């Protein structure tokens, strides 16, 4: 299982899903009306490292985080 967390203002509970790569996660989240609007401007981290490609394999126990636009300070 891969845990998917939605950070900051994204109002959605974490998911535990059986996926083996980020391509599959994109397919699932694009079908989800609650989350679809956030996908275009959210960054993605795998195990707390930001990634900039969907070409990332996932294994059991991995954590994927979605980070919407930020504004510290």
């Amino acid at each position, binding site marked *: 299982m891969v845990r998917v967390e939605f*950070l*900051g*203002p994204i109002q959605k509970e974490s998911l535990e899903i059986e996926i083996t790569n*980020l391509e599959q*996660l*994109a397919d699932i*989240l*694009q079908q989800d009306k609650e989350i*679809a609007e956030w*996908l*275009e*401007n*959210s*960054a*993605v*981290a795998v195990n*707390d*490292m*930001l*990634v*900039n*490609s*969907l070409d990332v394999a996932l294994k059991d126990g991995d954590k994927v*985080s*979605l*980070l*919407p*636009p*930020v*504004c*510290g*300070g």
Partner: protein
Amino acid sequence: MLYLYDGALNVSKILKDWYDEEANSNYGAYIPFVGTVRSEDGISGLSFDIYEPILERWFEAWQEKARAKGAIIKMAHSRGDVMLHESSYIAAVFSPKRRVALEFIDEFVEDFKASAPIWKYDLKDGQRIYASDRSTAIKGSGILGVKK
């Protein structure tokens, strides 16, 4: 040297503590930036969420860059609510000479605004409203939204 606090920062104490910590470190320059909540658009304050694991990594990468120039960075930020005229953010650079610190504080604060995983909300009329129009998508965002 990253410090996170619940609520507003005690600015005078933090600036003094940092000054005292480095008083004998032979730095010629100490350049702090303090961010204070201003009254605008009828807000009563701001509120912040922080994702600490990625913030710590981002900060460590900057600390490495600073060390390479003989400098150090310290940063403090609030979690949760910070009311008008209170402060939520302090960044400071210590360096042997002023030029490095002046340039570093500028680059660091700009990248902080664009990259640090912190989310800001306006406190207004009893609500906590995401400041979407002032927020910046982190570099590389959007990969999950690309349609095949």
